[in-house]
């Protein structure tokens, strides 16, 4: 019986985390897993901290997990990794997008953006993967592909590359963006050894 795996995606409202989770969940369902996915809607979407959780295995009951339970944390924004780090299992993995979005207290100058987040995470979690998805997305010619690039890295980190992800992209994004997103997903996968 396949043990249930827990994925936590974190970032900032507007970064496309819900679409990223949808791509991931669709692939896992196509592969025959039972899947549960939990989203938070409403007020948090207005530039606030946002998470979604995806759980998969033979049979999944709870849609959510508590602290110390995520097999992998994927953070679409650097500082958000700090906020959710204690949700990761001590022997789990972290994927960090090296991309900063200042929050309101930083913008108005009452706080500074914290330095050394990536180094600190690496000290806590051995298996930490860092990528610069914004740079990669700009190379692809569309900053909005950043979320799909991150999903690519996540897929590789979870060793799920056997699933037909091209098909998943065709099912989840608009026809005219399919090719670009397939490319984005591959680009993300190549970031993880």
């Amino acid at each position: 019986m396949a043990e249930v795996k827990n994925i936590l995606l974190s970032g900032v409202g507007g970064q496309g985390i819900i679409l990223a989770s949808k791509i991931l969940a669709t692939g896992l369902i196509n592969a025959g897993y039972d899947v549960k996915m939990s989203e938070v809607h409403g007020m948090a979407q207005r530039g606030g901290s946002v998470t979604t959780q995806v759980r998969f295995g033979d049979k999944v009951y709870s849609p959510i997990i508590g602290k110390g339970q995520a097999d992998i944390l994927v953070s679409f924004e650097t500082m958000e990794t700090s906020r959710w780090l204690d949700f990761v299992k001590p022997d789990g993995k972290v994927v960090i997008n090296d991309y900063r979005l200042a929050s309101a207290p930083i913008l108005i100058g009452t706080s500074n953006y914290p330095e050394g987040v990536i180094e600190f995470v690496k000290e806590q979690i051995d298996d930490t993967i860092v990528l610069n998805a914004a740079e990669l997305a700009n190379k692809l010619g569309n900053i909005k592909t950043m979320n799909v690039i991150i999903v690519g890295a996540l897929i590789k980190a979870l060793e799920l590359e056997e699933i037909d992800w091209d098909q998943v992209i065709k099912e989840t994004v608009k026809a005219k963006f399919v090719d670009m997103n397939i490319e984005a997903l591959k680009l993300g996968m190549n970031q993880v050894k």
Partner: protein
Amino acid sequence: MKKFLTGNEAVARGAYESGVTYAAAYPGTPSTEILENIALYKEDIVAEWAPNEKVALESAFGASIAGARSLAAMKHVGVNVAADPLFTLGYTGVTGGLVLVSADDPGCHSSQNEQDNRYYAKFAKMACIEPSDSQESLDFVKEAYRISEEFDVAVLFRMTTRVCHSKGLVEEGVREEFEIIPYVKQPKKYIVAPANARLLHPVVEDRLKKLEAYSNNTFLNRIEWNDSKIGIVTSGVAYTYAKEVFGDNANYLKIGFSYPLPMDKIKEFAGRVETLYVIEELEPFMEEQMKVNGIQCIGKDKIPNVGELNPDIIAHALLGKEIETVKVDESKIVGRPPTLCAGCPHRGFFYQLSKKKNVMITGDIGCYTLGSAEPLNAIDTVICMGASISMGHGAQKAFAKNGVDIRVVSVIGDSTFMHTGINSLIDVAYNKGNTVNVILDNRITAMTGHQQNPGTGFTVQGEPTNQINFENLVEAIGIKHVVTVNPLKLDEVDKALEDAFNFDGPSVIITRWPCALKKYSQQDIEEFGPISSKCHVVEDKCKGCRICTKTGCPSISFDVTKKKAFIDPNQCVGCEVCLQSCPFDAIEKVGEK
């Protein structure tokens, strides 16, 4: 093939498959997508946004009396608004099946409290059903309609955020058409004048006994026996947490029909286990009733009734399990509260209002509640839908009577004004109030994700419709001083506020500009025109005074080393509020000058 659906999508599907032909709701997280998904069945179901939850429930009630299957959906606090018809609905019962979906929000993800609405079912003497996941959300709705007609009772279908907004695999069925029940007048049932109401009450008590008998036998309340001495009575999403924690090492009485409770079944279950836990989210709704019936159990002594549960909280509370976690460095975390978006029309208004001294500002529920946050700090109170205007009125009267020289400004959104703000403004006009009332009309119900409302000119099913004219409306109520302004023009806003302060009597200011995220209608394009070019900071002119950051725009940051402001071109929409705020003309439009 199974579909991957949220609980909300599954409820909508369940209503469709049940042959529902009328549904009404008022948007509110986490319930909003229920009606949005029902509205997609345009050929089969009339779906409507009502101006508030009371209207939604009454409309659904009317459709039921007309003989059709109907549904009303709302968030937990919306049921408070609908409580008046609800309690009498508890007496009358129904004709066509009626389901009221109450979406509770444990953890206050997007709400002002975390009330447990199962108590409404007990209080109003109606049936309560609680699904645990998306498949049950679909299946249980179908059973709810059957029960509603068999027992002549409305069903409170109680969901929670994690059921509403979690996706799971769902097997769909087909729609079974429900033939409308021929209309006959039933005055003894539906005219609840005291003489009839007195006769209805014993009928209700008798109905509850029949429902309890059903509760003891229905598949909604099922026992899972395992080889264990532990028994768990649980309901809703808490069942899934219990299964994660105890797996096959406990026996379960899974309650899907939670009012009236299956007390005989619970007693039998309790008699066959050594330790009995009650695992329920929020209040001890089941536990209290079990204890009154002499059933010994462990519940809220150990499991918190504050906030939402998860598997770890239960494992810790009942098994003393400590989960190992990695270290967190608080110095590497800065808060990330939600903010008004770049280009939000509320920003210009609040920025100008925040400069006024000696004012009390009563606020309301919507995106603009964020006007209360740093750096704008332009709202003093937020309590419930529509309260801004009436609370402001009472405060202004109290100040005046007691010789306190403070002016009151009441701030409310367009949809919230039509929800329950209108009544409050009638109070202001009738009782000769003296408040400044501001309707922030952003041409859509924004916070819950852009729903149409009586001010937008479209229905939830996309049909053009009548559009409320706020100026005419408030003038008809009796407000003599009414002005409409563009909230992105700071001088216009300031003049409107000053004129209102100087006017002796109640006034209304309407700020009219679309939400920055709104997809413009043809009317919007004609009225508000194309979006203009972005703004940028001319570094030579920037003195580093940081005044532009006081607008709280998420696209503006301040570079401490260069001592210059910076506008992120990826976020700026060119609203020009910062441009007007700059005392040194250091912000310009890209491509101009």
